């Protein structure tokens, strides 16, 4: 099932399907290993529109809510 990274529950694993956004966002996410086809696990989402924290390639990455809402993932 495809959903946005923001909709994923903490603890759930998923694969990145696509990233919607300009080149700047693509490049920044890619530099941290967030590319299409990459597996990730959501660790937590802070309340009131705070960042989403994911584990990707055994590293924790904090992603601002607005950016996380541009990442489409498929639950596995």
């Amino acid at each position, binding site marked *: 099932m495809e959903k946005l990274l923001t909709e994923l529950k903490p603890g759930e694993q998923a694969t990145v399907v696509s990233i919607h956004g300009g080149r700047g966002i693509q490049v920044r996410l*890619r530099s*941290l290993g967030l590319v299409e086809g990459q597996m990730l696990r959501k660790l*937590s989402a802070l309340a009131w529109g705070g*960042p989403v924290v994911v584990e990707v390639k055994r590293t924790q990455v904090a992603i601002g809510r607005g950016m996380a809402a541009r990442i489409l993932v498929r639950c596995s």
Partner: protein
Amino acid sequence: MRDMGAEQRIRKAPQKPRKHLENDILLVGQPNVGKSVLFSHLTGVRTIASNYPGTTVSYAMGRMRGKGSTLVVVDAPGTYSLEPLDEAARVTVDLIDDAKRIINVVDSTHLERHLPMTLELIAQNKPMVVALNMSDEARHRGIRIDVEQLSAELGVPVLSIVAPSGEGVKQLVDTCLELQPIDHSPHNESGHPGHHPHIQHPSSTGRNNSFPEHVHLNRDRIWKRVGELVEKVQTLEHHHHSFSERLEEISIHPFWGSLLALAVITVSFSLIRLIGEFLIAGAVGIIGKPWVELPFGTELLFDKVLHPPLIALSRAIGAESFLHKLLIGTLVNGRIDFMQSFGILSSGIFIPIGVVLPYLLSFYFVLALLEDSGYLPRLAVFLDNFMHRIGLHGYAIIPTLLGLGCNVPGIMATRILESRRQRFITATLISIAVPCAALQAMIIGLVGRRGIGPVLIVYGTLFVVWLLVSLVLRLTVRGFQPELLVEIPPYRLPTFRALGTKMWLRISGFIREALPIILGAIVAVNVLYQLNLFAYLAGAAEPVITRLWGMPSEAVVPLLVGILRKDVALGLLAPLDLTVKQLIIGSVLLAMFFPCIATFVVLFRELGLKDGLKSLGIMLLAVFLTGSVLNLILR
């Protein structure tokens, strides 16, 4: 792998001619892999290293002996890719062009994230060694890397090192020196077509100067290749969750993490106050009456050791002479008041050494703990939401915290922010409403004599100003507001060596740079008083200072001296016999009115002339309004 280098790679034409920096060895790697630690080991130059991405925002240069010659080593700011995303990374990309040899520093615990850049670097056709740093941490985490096979696959030498202990560093240097540097001279270029794919040809610069046209190695190929490499050379063993990993889980939990953030902030500020007051007055306590008072501290030291000989000197010179004014200052009830007398030997030494230094030690100790533990990026995550509302994102808290020590490194650190807009807002806020540790020490020392209430009003006002200015800037400064995107490093135990080095660098910097300015300012003030020049100034400033702000017109002197240094300027408020209200207004105005000269220079250097002037305009408006409003509402 070398075949990738043949792919087309065109770089953005520099907007302005940049300075070339010839270097024999360049340290390149992603943020927070320990480049600065390795750099210190190689060159003996001490640098500030911390545990968060973006510690180094400019390059550092040092010299190293090797093979009978002296080699220039350059430590570049970390970058995730050769496509520069922020100012710091842009510096690095330029440095690569001028490098003779490259040491690519890689985090052994996250090989798959670091190898893409390694491949990009190899494609630059520079002699290069890969240093697998943190190999001790990799062992602890059950990660095994076949170094020889990795080296064979990459076609460049690969070595494991542990930068903090120096393990493997010697072999790394030897290997690096065996590499033959490539001759840079332009005449060589024509003979080797394709040898320097990155060199700018005049004909090619014009058409390729927009960012999206960078053609780098094919991304899919890089990721695929990295996947294969990691599969071949790395094996993971199961290991038990360590205590620090548990703590990492708690730190990002929405509820427990918030509590932890609150606790860390409270404990940090309490600790700064506790250590600072102990060093000054021997008092053990945080708010209100100290719990214990010990015969210790700089106040006692100055009273017992420095006071008797100075009084003897005072008698010898005679209290009325100009020399007495200059050296000792004015006596208060027949004694030297180190805060108020304002001679070179009295306040001139007491302010920097007796008041400011203890708080600097205390502040930088706590800051170093926060920096080295890896907590700061986590704090940024928790503050992101709040910072978004004022037009910034969570990472802007790092320059702001550094600014609480000294505005200069604070404003420099705004380079870790992505957009010009964020940098402008953060730097302007720091210069207006973030008091440096030296100023804070004086506020606590001077305003604190009138009770804790006035101190809290000063801090509260500055916070409100910070908030209001940021809201106004958010609405008025146009530009792109990026989102937070940050790698959260693992927790690490701060080492004494790293703490000590950092504190020494920061404190010695203060003594070297601030002490002469403080002494100079005291001499200048005394001479100008003697010449009676301040009377004219006071007369001219009277309408604003007295009528609007309710301050005595002589307060123009500290305000002007504040342009040199804030701590000594606040000290000048001491002899003015101010009411509590005036002292509060004076402290707030001093904190806001014109950044000190060092901050001023850095502000203009970082923002440019136009934005620097804008920032100053905003400052003047904010000072004018804040002074007037405080005068109206305080009683």
